[in-house]
């Protein structure tokens, strides 16, 4: 009895020890990091599969809802090497005519040796079209149904057919090719990891970009899975009108070609809202062949010069000097300036563009003759401190903040900065020695056209998110000059335009404007006279401006003057664009236009 009890206790003890060891081991296995990692790895590889789920990139539309950038499907045709090895002849025979690849190439692909987990399949064509895929399916169906004499042949054919597969890929497509390409930018669909470049594509890459979600799905059917949440990408609606954009693009292309210029730019903006209605440049590229950008664009000829290329605008800048002079009270509209052809500063002489003295001139005459001396006098009367305060008020010391990537600006020197001399003020007054981008000019001149109120230029009208739409309302960003000054400047420049650049005048509408021919400074040579930037800025109707248009030709060689190339470009552009801007058209004025111009007293 004692032995039995003793043995029983030993057994109980042994069982308890075994249970303890097992429990201890189980606990250690469940808490040991190395074991847990290994377990997790095994589970991942054996119990789960990872699927990649893609959302396509957001669309871009013009203001009327026409698609400018969308997505389309192309297919990658693959060969399963496990099935294709040894059957290259047959596969090549029926695939070659469909894919347009020679049989030998396909045969070589098909015979690449199959290596488990290393060489499993090989892509033989990227970007195959839907039609090609349909043809492959039809061909496969035809071959599969073909009557054969032996079962072996039938199974061989099926095996060969199964060796060919395809996977769909979504990629970026630009249905309008080069239209507004400088605004849109591009997404390199052949090399997505490079990321979007330029324009809207780059600026809004975070909300446009297609998101790839890698979701692990359990192979165990008892573990229920839910679909991953796929956020719909935002679509962007621009302020540009594609009709106006296309007219502007045709005009700038013709002007650049005719004048053999390096590049050309046109911007049309609504000064009351800051909406960009067109932003055309030339050269441009077809966005579906975006690789051209590496050869077409250079450091001196950017992708979108309107926002990326500061330059010395020349006499167009006199619009600001006039505005500053009048607004500060330094000059009055009926002042008379006696132009002797020179203006001396610290022993250095400033000449007019034509090195001519024009004698006594009204302020209108100063603008009509585009007198550098008169502008230097006005700037001196204003004083350096107030002059640069006004330039800051016009936001010429900063980028505009328009929703386009890679915007650049060139900070000018101010009193106190290294490089600023007493000659800088008069030079700056007529647009020499400081650089601005066309979009900076349009923004600042928009203030003059809009009764002194400067609007934020914007090119995005709305962003359509999955659950809401964000509308970009017009936003005033400052009032550099008073409404009275703005109207007066518009009147002066309307009258002066007849004397300065009759070619810029538009039949049926009073236009205020100013030409500019900026000389180009070359390192080591200084300013050269045969290379210029020819510009014109105009706004109208002068009674109540509805547009500001800016034209710029970089280094025209046919004719170097802004009044001869940029001004007529403006007139041609506005003649064509006016109906689409829905601006009332004064036919009576237009009918008398030619006669009226000829009967002027000069």
């Amino acid at each position, binding site marked *: 009895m004692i032995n039995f009890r003793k043995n029983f206790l030993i057994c109980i003890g042994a069982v308890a020890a075994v249970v303890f060891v097992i429990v201890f081991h189980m606990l250690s296995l469940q808490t040991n990091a190395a074991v847990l990692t290994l377990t997790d790895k095994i589970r991942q590889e054996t119990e789960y599969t990872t699927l990649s789920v893609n959302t396509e990139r957001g669309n871009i539309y013009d203001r009327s809802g026409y698609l400018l950038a969308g997505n389309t499907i192309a297919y990658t045709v693959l060969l399963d090497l496990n099935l294709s090895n040894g059957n290259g002849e047959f596969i090549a025979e029926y695939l070659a005519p469909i894919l347009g690849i020679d049989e030998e190439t396909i045969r070589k692909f098909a015979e690449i040796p199959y290596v488990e987990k290393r060489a499993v399949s090989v892509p033989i064509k990227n970007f195959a079209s839907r039609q090609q895929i349909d043809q492959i399916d039809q061909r496969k169906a035809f071959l599969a149904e073909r009557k054969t004499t032996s079962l072996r042949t039938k199974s061989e054919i099926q095996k060969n057919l199964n060796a060919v597969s395809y996977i769909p890929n979504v990629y970026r497509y630009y249905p309008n090719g080069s239209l507004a390409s400088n605004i849109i930018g591009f997404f390199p669909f052949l090399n997505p990891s490079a990321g979007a470049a330029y324009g809207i594509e780059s600026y809004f890459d975070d909300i446009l970009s297609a998101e790839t979600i890698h979701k692990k799905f359990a192979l165990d059917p008892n573990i229920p899975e*839910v679909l991953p949440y796929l956020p719909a990408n935002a679509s962007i609606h621009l302020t540009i009108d594609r009709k106006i954009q296309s007219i502007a693009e045709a005009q700038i292309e013709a002007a650049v070609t005719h004048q053999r210029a390096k590049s050309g730019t046109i911007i049309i903006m609504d000064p009351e809202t800051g909406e960009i209605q067109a932003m055309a440049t030339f050269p441009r590229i077809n966005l579906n062949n975006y690789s051209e950008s590496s050869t077409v664009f250079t450091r001196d000829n950017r992708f979108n010069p309107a926002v990326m290329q500061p330059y010395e605008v020349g006499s167009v800048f006199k619009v600001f000097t006039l505005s500053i002079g009048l607004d500060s009270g330094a000059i009055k509209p009926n002042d008379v300036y006696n132009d002797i052809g020179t203006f001396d500063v610290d022993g250095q002489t400033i000449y007019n563009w034509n090195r001519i003295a024009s004698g006594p001139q009204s302020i209108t005459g100063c603008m009509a003759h585009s007198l550098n001396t008169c502008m230097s006098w006005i700037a001196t009367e204003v004083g350096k401190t107030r002059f640069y305060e006004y330039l800051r008020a016009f936001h010429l010391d900063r980028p505009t903040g328009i929703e386009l990537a890679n915007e650049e600006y060139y900070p000018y020197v101010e009193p106190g900065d290294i490089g600023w001399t007493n000659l800088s003020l008069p030079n700056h007054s007529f647009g020499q020695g400081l650089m601005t981008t066309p979009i900076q000019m349009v923004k600042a001149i928009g203030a003059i056209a809009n009764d002194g109120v400067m609007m934020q230029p914007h090119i995005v009208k709305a962003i359509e998110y999955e659950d809401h739409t964000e509308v970009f309302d017009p936003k005033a960003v400052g009032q550099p000059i008073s409404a009275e000054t703005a109207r007066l400047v518009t009147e002066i420049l309307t009258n002066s335009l007849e004397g300065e650049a009759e070619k810029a005048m538009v039949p049926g509408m009073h236009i205020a404007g100013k030409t500019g021919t900026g000389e180009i400074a070359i390192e080591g040579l200084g300013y050269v006279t045969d290379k210029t930037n020819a510009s014109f800025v105009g706004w109208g109707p002068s009674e109540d401006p509805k547009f500001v248009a800016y034209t710029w030709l970089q280094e025209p060689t046919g004719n170097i003057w802004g009044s001869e190339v940029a001004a007529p470009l403006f007139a041609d552009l506005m003649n064509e664009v006016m109906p689409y801007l829905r601006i009332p058209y004064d036919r009576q004025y237009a009918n008398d236009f030619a006669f009226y111009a000829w009967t002027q007293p000069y």
Partner: protein
Amino acid sequence: MTQQQAYRTPPWKKQIQSLIRVSIALICAFVVALIYLTYSAKLSEVRLNIQEAHAKRNDLMRQIAEYQTRTGALTSFDAMRRRAEQSGYVDIDFYDDATYVYIPLNGYDPHARFSGADLFYPSTPPASPLRPEYTISLQYFLRQRLIQSPYKRGQE
């Protein structure tokens, strides 16, 4: 002396009891397994449907994107312009009196000028502040002053 029970359960009864216990256990296990398998099957089916829906949705998303882009291509500016021209439409010509009727407004003066600013009038004939020697080319200067004879210049 140990005490013994007066009656014992007969062996057949014990066997039946054992069988009933085992059967109950088996039935319970069977029911549990049945429920488990039923729901497993349902879960599998649902999961398969979800995966199919997933694939279908991806396919539909691609198709929608494709159709949107095809629409974009069909309504692209060049395509629309081509179709408009083929259909006989022409560009707006505001100078075409046959197409547009203009109504003159009473009291409107198209020649009204802005009063706030001076009108532009050409001033005195432009005069250069520089002496002629600084405004003419070297070639012209040499021809005038050196090459041509004083006699000939005198004739001019």
